């Protein structure tokens, strides 16, 4: 690697946002460089400035943002002095290509794939139309789009999400860029598709010798894909170095904390090490350590002076603690086993699905015939008191439809859902509410933006006419304490709260009626890793203290491993496998379960062990990008 030339060198990059509350430096003094063919992962939680770094490089920042940089050189050419027009003509899309997060919105819906792919190179690279077309078809074939010539005439809506992201990648490769900037390229995709896309990117990078900048919040994705990592926090790179070293032996307290937050599957689940607090908004000048407000190892001088950069030529980090001092610290993740003891499964199940069917009539056009879409096909399972039952599947597998039926928000076409032995749809809604409460995925839409936090949490009491104003307020205060919300946020509106706090509010609202069962639909997938850890720990605590039963619906296998006792795997509306977590995750029986497990990004150099059923069956399947009806 050392003889390779340096493609990109960024020095002292700053992005400044002028907000009504004051000047906010979203990126402060970031420096890194990248050699030809090398991949760097920029990792951080939301608000860390990682996307701003990429956007600043591509000059795609919103208008309120200003960029300042010591120097940015691409292939020995300084980019700082270039005007926006020159940059757009000669760099953007030609030397540097970008892949965006949302494949659903990053292609223009009114133009064909072919036109979108060839337009830029025909206009700017002087390629002839037919040559551009030929290259586009080649590249579509290269990113494994079936029937590439036919796809050229199709429109984006005719492709699945995974296919669109492949088209985006092929499009980014059209002008043979030297650098690809990928901003969360797989976050919006299913895990099996994610695995295929990441593999494809790595392969193409080797083949074309491009450098890549991968922006992501997912440490496991980084582990499998890049050579070196820069960990960002509060707009600063707090630690950087070779990927393996950082992930196995992190030095900065933030990196250590972050890694301890990730549920790992290589040993029995232990309590996650959560970083307390939230990412602060750092307004104005920061002449202290950006992580000091959340750091477990904080010293008085961290709050008064910037920490030194400790660089051993190989890797570097910003902290007052020396490597030896850090190595002497206790592990960031407590070694506290949390898997609940065996659940007695005699007696009546708390929640039960019996041969549930749900069929949607889909009409694909005004005059076409209706086709039946089997969202749920003969689904049965039983959840017993005290257990955490996980329902795993990818988008379109029917798991959310099932949740809505179980909650009584929709009705099954055939079969029935039973709550404590009674059919859910026939139980009085208010009585049902006392037994079962939902937690939704998106904490931004699950709270009414016009109500205060206290009102939101007390709402169930209002609806059920329980208590008076004082007793309600007391109940709210006690349940807020239970879920770890400070009392001072009572009169806040949801827009004043962070994602993790909102999810705590949603949990508090669900708990105030003291239900027996919580139905959690992707409760942490909209949250950052460190916040996910806080919420998962909270769920574990609540189960231990209150004897709650959970139905956990998720696509995240690691979360299942962390909290569930039993798991059911769903695919295309059917439950393909159900059993104890250890049983299903270690010794899967069904092919789809194997595919799902093998797609989970491998983390920490300790691949998740799946015992082969018979040798040769663990090949990673690359059947089409489409999973289930979408």
């Amino acid at each position, binding site marked *: 690697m050392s003889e390779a030339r340096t493609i990109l060198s960024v020095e002292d990059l700053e992005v400044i946002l002028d907000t*009504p*509350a004051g000047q906010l430096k979203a990126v402060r003094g970031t420096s890194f460089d990248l050699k030809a063919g090398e991949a760097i992962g920029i990792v951080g939680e939301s608000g860390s400035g990682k996307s701003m770094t990429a956007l600043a490089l591509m000059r795609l920042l919103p208008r309120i943002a200003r960029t300042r940089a010591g120097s940015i050189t691409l292939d020995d050419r300084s980019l700082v002095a270039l005007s926006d027009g020159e940059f757009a003509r000669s760099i953007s899309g030609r030397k540097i290509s970008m892949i965006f997060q949302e494949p659903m919105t990053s292609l223009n819906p009114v133009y064909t794939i072919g036109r979108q792919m060839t337009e830029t190179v025909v206009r700017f690279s002087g390629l002839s139309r037919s040559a551009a077309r030929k290259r586009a078809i080649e590249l579509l074939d290269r990113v494994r789009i079936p029937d590439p010539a036919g796809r050229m005439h199709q429109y984006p809506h005719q492709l699945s999400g995974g296919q669109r992201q492949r088209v985006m990648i092929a499009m980014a490769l059209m002008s043979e860029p030297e650098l690809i900037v990928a901003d969360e390229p797989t976050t919006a995709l299913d895990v099996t598709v994610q695995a295929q896309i990441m593999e494809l990117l790595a392969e193409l990078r080797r083949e074309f010798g491009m450098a890549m900048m991968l922006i992501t919040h997912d440490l496991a994705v980084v582990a499998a894909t890049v050579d070196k990592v820069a960990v960002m926090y509060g707009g600063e790179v707090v630690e950087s170095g070779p990927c393996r070293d950082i992930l196995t032996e992190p030095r900065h307290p933030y990196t250590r904390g972050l890694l301890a937050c990730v549920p790992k599957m290589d040993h029995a689940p232990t309590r996650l090490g959560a970083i307390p*607090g*939230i990412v*602060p*908004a750092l307004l104005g000048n920061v002449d202290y350590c950006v992580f*000091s*407000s959340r750091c477990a190892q904080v010293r008085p001088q961290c709050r008064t002076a910037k920490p030194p950069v400790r660089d051993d030529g190989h890797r570097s980090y910003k902290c007052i603690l020396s490597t030896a001092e850090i190595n002497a610290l206790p592990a960031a993740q407590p070694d506290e086993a949390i898997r609940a003891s065996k659940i007695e499964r005699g007696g009546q199940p708390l929640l039960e699905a019996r041969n549930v069917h749900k069929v949607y009539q889909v009409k694909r056009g005004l005059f076409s015939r209706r086709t039946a879409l089997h969202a749920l096909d003969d689904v049965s399972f039983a959840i017993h008191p005290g257990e955490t039952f996980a329902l795993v599947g990818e988008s379109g597998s029917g798991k959310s439809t099932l949740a*809505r039926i179980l*909650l*009584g*928000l929709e009705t099954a076409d055939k079969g029935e859902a039973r709550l404590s032995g009674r059919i859910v749809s026939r139980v*009085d*809604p*208010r*009585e*049902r*509410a*006392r037994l*079962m*409460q*939902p937690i*939704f*995925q*998106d904490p*931004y*839409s*699950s*709270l*009414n*933006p*016009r*109500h205060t936090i206290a009102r939101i949490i007390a*709402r*169930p009491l209002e*609806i*059920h006419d329980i208590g008076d104003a004082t007793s309600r307020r007391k109940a709210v205060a006690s349940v807020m304490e239970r879920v770890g919300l*400070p009392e*001072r*946020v009572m*009169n*806040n*509106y*949801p*827009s*004043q*709260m*962070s994602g993790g*706090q909102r999810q705590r509010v*949603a949990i508090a*609202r669900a708990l105030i*009626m003291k239900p027996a069962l919580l139905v959690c639909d992707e409760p942490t997938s909209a949250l950052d890793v460190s916040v996910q850890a806080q919420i998962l720990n909270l769920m574990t605590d609540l189960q231990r203290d209150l004897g709650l039963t959970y139905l956990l619906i998720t696509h995240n296998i690691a979360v299942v491993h962390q909290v569930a006792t039993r798991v059911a795997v769903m695919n295309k509306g059917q439950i393909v496998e159900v059993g104890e977590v250890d049983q299903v995750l270690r010794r899967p029986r069904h092919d789809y379960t194997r595919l799902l497990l093998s797609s989970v990004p491998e983390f920490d150099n300790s691949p998740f062990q799946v015992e082969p059923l018979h040798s040769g069956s663990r090949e990673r399947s690359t059947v089409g990008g489409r999973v289930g009806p979408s």
Partner: protein
Amino acid sequence: MSITSSSHTIASNEAGAPSPRSLMVQRARGHLGFIAGAAIVLTLILVALFAPLLAPHDPFAQSLANRLLPPVWEDGGRWEYLLGTDQVGRDYLSRLIYGARVSLMIGFGAAMIGMVIGVALGICAGYFGGWVDHVVSFFLTAQLALPGILLAMALVFIIGPSLWVVIGIIGVLHWTYFLVVTRSATQRLKSQDFVAAASAMGASRWQILRTEILPNLTNQIIVIFTFELGISILAESALSFLGVGIQPPTPSWGLMIAEGKQALFFRPWLVILPGAFLFLLVIGANLLGDGLRDVTSPEGRN
């Protein structure tokens, strides 16, 4: 929510974010159109409320000796009658001041009636969908296909003109904007998780509509209300001008324009003055509505 402890400079970040309301006030302060519109509308409301104190003369008192006096800045104008007099010698300024009462009553009354009809139908259509939506949409199409002024004229003619009839008829004919906006906003809100959460709590449909959906519509409703205010005032003027609105001798700006039109060539102020007041009020209402939309919408996004 007062900021009492300053020791938590960093920790207070979680609670220290400005509330939606204070952000709105901040935006309103910097919005020129909003300030101008609010100032105009407020001034005219005050004028209407305190008309008896402000008007120099009785608006109904005729003085045939002082017919068609020009405003004070023209030749022959008198300080006693600042804006001159009309065909039967009534003080024009006093009539304009009292006219503000009629215009504002019609504006607010009619917009209120339109709001009740439109919002009720819109929420039901948006929330229940299905056949309710079809029926409401049919009403909407029918209403949009009807020539408004013609229908209003016919109705006033049948029922007989009076202030309350005019308010009622204009209101009943101006609910379409309310319906269209609340319907689509409700459709969007309905699919949000907090509505599903409320129904999982056992809330009835009525409770969901009232406590979860309606508070989220207030911004849009206020904005449309101000626009409809202006439109209703214009509609009343049109009806009065055509002779089927407010009946003489009640002072109404539209009626004053109609009465002045025979003398338009030689006594243009008879038309220009009420026209200018009308213009001022309507533009004030529109500026206010525009401003309100700008001031409230950033919060509406989350």
